[in-house]
């Protein structure tokens, strides 16, 4: 029964791997085979192994948000920061990016707010950082009623530096209350008559009210949109706009409109962020690491299995079967939860394969002692399990404590991955040691403890 179950789980893992591969190859083959793709994609393909960046290649960026200057609603600010960044990355069609915020206390009780971004497939940190962009400020400025006289010195300077430009802008436009903080999104739209691209702006509720007031008071004037102090669009207000939506028309090409929309979304960052850590892993390095980890896992299993069979003989074989079932269950859990696998996570799995044997060894040693007392084989097995259980429980508890603490306090995905796999491993190993090994040993149904049976249940090098 157990064996059947184990085989079934194994089949699940195997075929889900195969079917996910089939889908990939079909998609890449021809465009005409779309129908075939649908047929081939069984439900199993929905459960692939999820690989972490260090095995898949990609970039991991950590930003620190400067929260002090903004609102009291830190969580809200971080949440909208997360949304904005996620939108930006999604706009580039990267598959499955992860954007999350995290608050950590450092020495002195000071809190730091982090934004963690993981972009699979983008292995050049430069590209990844550019995807997210720096943090330009988006401002709206109103044309001044009486333009100030532009400083002669500024006009006479031969080069147009940033400061000259800023001076000229300050002379003609005054800052409005409205900033990028109130913009909820910018999109590309197309004029229904001319088909020309234009930019649609959408403000949040508060921003919408300010914008309505602003446009109402300044009909016929220019409300300029400035990104990092540079005018990107200088539309004239035709009418008061009440619904918090605005359209920037102009003579943009499609590319220009697209980048403008992106810039506006960039500018909508609610909080200033600083890049404090990056990590990028080349795809080949990731593949190598994955292959190495799989190889280590296979070898680890073989060596452990050989040892168990040579030393414990028949119970050793049982332990190996139980270990195989353990491994299969672990892999199934990785797929189903799913657990994001990193090199450290796989190290945790390999380590846990070694540790999972511990329960079996405790049981076998106890069993051998019981048998030495001269009880029947069946009774020896039962008694051995019963007595070993207290030790198994106690010793695994300490590992569980360690794993939970590690998981809670881990700062890196690597350590978190390890702790999670380790924790699952300990729990599953307790289960397999007491159920699988026990049932299998009893099921072998050897009645007497003599001759071959005695040899098979013996251990070490003595008879």
């Amino acid at each position, binding site marked *: 029964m157990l064996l059947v179950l184990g085989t079934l789980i194994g089949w699940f893992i195997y075929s889900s791997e195969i079917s996910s591969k089939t889908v990939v190859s079909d998609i890449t083959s021809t465009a005409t085979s779309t129908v075939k793709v649908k047929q081939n994609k069984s439900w199993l393909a929905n459960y692939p192994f999820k690989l972490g960046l260090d095995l898949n290649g990609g970039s991991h960026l950590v930003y620190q948000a400067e929260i002090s200057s903004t609102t009291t609603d830190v969580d809200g600010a971080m949440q909208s920061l997360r949304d904005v960044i996620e939108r930006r990355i999604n706009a580039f069609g990267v598959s499955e990016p992860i954007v999350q915020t995290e608050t950590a206390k450092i020495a002195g009780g000071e809190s730091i707010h982090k934004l963690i971004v993981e972009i699979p497939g983008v292995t050049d940190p430069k590209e990844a950082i550019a995807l997210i962009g720096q943090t330009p400020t988006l401002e709206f400025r109103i044309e001044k009623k009486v333009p100030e006289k532009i400083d002669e010195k500024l006009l006479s300077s031969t080069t147009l530096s940033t400061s000259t430009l800023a001076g000229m802008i300050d002379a003609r436009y005054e800052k409005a209350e409205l900033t990028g903080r109130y913009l909820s999104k910018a999109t590309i739209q197309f004029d229904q008559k001319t088909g020309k691209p234009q930019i649609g702006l959408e403000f949040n509720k508060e921003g919408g009210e300010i914008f309505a007031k602003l446009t109402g008071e300044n009909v016929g004037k220019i409300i300029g949109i400035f990104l990092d102090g540079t005018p990107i669009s200088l539309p004239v207000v035709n009418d008061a706009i009440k619904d918090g939506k605005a359209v920037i028309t102009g003579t943009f090409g499609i590319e220009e409109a697209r980048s403008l929309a992106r810039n506006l979304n960039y500018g909508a960052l609610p909080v200033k962020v600083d890049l404090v850590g990056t990590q990028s892993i080349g795809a080949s390095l990731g593949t190598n690491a994955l292959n190495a980890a799989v190889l280590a896992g296979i070898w680890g299993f073989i060596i452990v299995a050989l040892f168990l069979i040579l030393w414990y003989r028949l119970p050793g074989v049982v332990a190996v079967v139980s270990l195989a079932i353990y491994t299969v269950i672990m892999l199934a859990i990785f797929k189903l939860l799913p657990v994001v696998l990193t090199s450290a996570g796989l190290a945790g799995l390999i380590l846990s394969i070694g540790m999972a044997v511990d329960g079996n060894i405790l049981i076998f040693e106890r069993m051998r002692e019981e048998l030495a007392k001269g009880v029947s084989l069946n009774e020896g097995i039962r008694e051995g399990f019963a007595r070993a259980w207290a030790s198994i429980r106690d010793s695994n508890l300490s590992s569980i404590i360690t794993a939970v603490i590690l998981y809670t306090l881990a700062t890196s995905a690597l*350590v978190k991955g390890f702790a999670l796999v380790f924790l699952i491993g300990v729990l599953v190993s307790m289960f397999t040691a007491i159920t699988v090994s026990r049932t299998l040993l009893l099921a072998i149904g050897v009645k007497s403890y003599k001759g071959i049976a005695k040899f098979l249940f013996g251990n070490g090098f003595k008879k």
Partner: protein
Amino acid sequence: MFVVKYRKIFYSITALITAFSIFAVSYWGLNFGIDFKGGAIAEVEYQNRPSKESVETSIKALNLGEFSVRPSGDNAFIIKTRELSNVERQNVIGAVVGTTTGATLKQFDSVGPVLGQELAQKSASAIIFVIIAIVLFITFAFRRVSEPVSSFKYGLIAVVALIHDVIVPTGIYAFLGRNGGFEVDALFVTAILVILGFSVHDTIVVFDRTRENLKHAPAKKPFFEIVGESISQTFARSINTSLVVVLSLIALFVFGPEATHNFALVMIIGIITGTYSSIFLGSPLLVTVERMGKGK
């Protein structure tokens, strides 16, 4: 059991190893990696690896202060610098990859000091929490044992063994850090914590047996004999369990990915130390403590 009989010899061996480890840590210190100190690390792979000097010269031209270039494998260099700004990073990558054909940036990590501080803080809390949890756990597990050694003392001895198990791998790591460039990183701390859990688990199994044997032993049987018997009964289990874990870790060390190489090594050292201490330090100490209690 010979372990109990010749416990003084084993104490001396233990003392010697521990002394060396303490010396290693205090004299050489630990070589902290960039995830604690902050800094940047780049791994560049070449088709035809240029000389180390030429790479050093091109980085030196950028005036970044201290840096190191270390060969990795047959065709790569690992370059370490202080933390870099965006522009500086481009410059470094440009200097080592840009002009060389067939050069690829395999890996680039940069860690700011804030993250380092956070890691240090969290590592410290994790170690403290694990130790507290384990002491509580042992006290709880042995709450019913009182004669002739109180449960509190079992706990205390387990902690002594625990401290030993942390000091020794740390000391060896300090030695390796000094001589082989091994760095203390987040995974090192993880390994130490797992060793803590594993070692206490090993010690508990031996103590557990002592506890059980005490229950069934005739009143006159001397304590040291009971402890000796308990060690021999659990000897095979302790060695075999650790051996199996060490075997799987060796597979990880030999075949596994670069990222977990040092982790596997620390774990191997730690597990061997942990097994040693539970057999040759923990249980003999039980006997010593019992004798001291009797005033002998």
